[in-house]
């Protein structure tokens, strides 16, 4: 399900090896992601998902290869500018604890020197978008929010300056199952209304197959398969993908046995 023919993100022979490691955290990744896609990245812990994401907003630089966003090689762009153009939300949320919810969401607009009125309006608009009542939450501090509410604020903050690309690193990783389902649905709704390219990391196969228009499956730094959820289930590319799907089937059997 390719949404447009404009390539939003392109990885070309991307490698990353951390200092002192004797293996590549990310190894020869080649991918083209089109504008408007909702890409999920699935893989077990340590498979290089976070590293791939962090290279996309230049928190890390690759050892080899190129990453191209809308035709522009990010190596040639100041890292700070790259990051301000990309929305970024992480599992640990990373809300700044000394700032109110409103101040947190306003960080990037302020960095971009928006005027106060525009920022205030945008903050309210975003809180509504992520399903939080702005009058109630604007002046609160992060520690006065539940995990799910914090995660919504993290999402609002990432969306603040309307970035074309959103990087989401296990944003729902620490959230209970029920809230997680709600957030997944809302994220899907958000994506369909926004025409943005989402790159969403998860280690939960359900989440990956449910949200992704296409799914990247990673193992030991390499991409095993990049395809639609349907095709992945129909034609698993290798033993790892098969094992992943089978482990999920096992779980389903357990459920059937219990019902």
């Amino acid at each position, binding site marked *: 399900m390719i949404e447009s023919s404009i390539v939003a993100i392109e990885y070309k022979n991307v490698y990353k090896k951390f200092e002192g490691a004797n293996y590549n955290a990310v190894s020869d990744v080649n991918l083209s992601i089109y504008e408007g896609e909702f890409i999920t990245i699935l893989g077990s812990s340590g498979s290089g998902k976070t590293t791939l994401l962090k290279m996309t907003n230049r928190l890390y630089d690759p050892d080899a290869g190129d990453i191209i966003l809308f035709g522009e090689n990010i190596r040639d762009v100041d890292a700070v500018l*790259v*990051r301000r153009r990309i929305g*970024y939300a*992480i599992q640990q*949320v*990373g*809300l700044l604890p*000394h700032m109110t919810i409103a101040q947190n969401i306003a*960080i990037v607009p302020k960095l971009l020197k928006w005027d106060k009125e525009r920022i205030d309006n945008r903050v309210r608009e975003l809180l509504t978008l992520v399903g939080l009542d702005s009058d109630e939450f604007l002046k609160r501090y992060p520690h006065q929010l539940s995990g799910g509410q914090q995660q919504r604020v993290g999402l609002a903050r990432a969306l603040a300056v309307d970035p074309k690309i959103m990087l989401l690193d296990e944003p729902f990783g620490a959230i209970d199952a029920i809230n997680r389902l709600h957030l997944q649905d809302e994220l899907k709704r958000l994506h369909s209304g926004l025409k943005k390219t989402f790159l969403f990391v998860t280690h939960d196969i359900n989440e990956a197959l449910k949200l992704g228009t296409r799914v990247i499956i990673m193992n030991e730094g390499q991409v095993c398969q990049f395809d639609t959820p349907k095709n992945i289930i129909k034609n698993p590319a290798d033993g790892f993908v098969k094992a992943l799907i089978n482990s999920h089937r096992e779980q389903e059997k357990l459920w059937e046995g219990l019902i």
Partner: protein
Amino acid sequence: MELIQFAQRNYSILLRALSEHVQMVLIALILSVALAGMLTILAMFFKPIGKFLIYLSSIIYSIPSIALFALMIPLPGLGLGRATAITVLVLYNQFILLRNFITGLNGVDHAIIEAAAGMGMKPTQIILKVRVPLSIKSIFVGIRLALISTIAIAIIASFIGAGGIGLLVTIGLETNNNNRIIWGVILSVGLGIVANAILVFIEKRIKR
């Protein structure tokens, strides 16, 4: 009673000693915090420098103050007097301040720093808008310790002609005048208590 009579007769001397002391302490503290602040920012950009600075300042801190005063006197531009005293006080404070500033700033949760960087904050913005506010407690502990230690060490500075409360004590010792000595102690302790209270008040105001 004798103490009060002494103060009534010599209040101008006591007042002068106190005001000299407060001036010396204030100047030394402001310079100390400014220097330590700059060194801390430097240390944020080059990690090894931070370790080296803490190590170096710990060595200075371990030199007895009288010896350090004596070592400074021959240096050009210093000599006997207040400039030397303030230099020594600033040097002493670096250990206390750097240790608290640098460990405080480095202690901020890495996930928060990375989120800030990921949003596109510049390194200096991360230091000033994220690290500093989140380690304000540690920063204030450093400043308070430095203040108390400065008030105490500045007493000794009277030996090199810097005046202040220490002069009351030294003259008291020379002339065997207990009243002078006791007033020296009272002023010094009182100053410490008042200064500490002021800092606690400021700290509370800053932390909302």
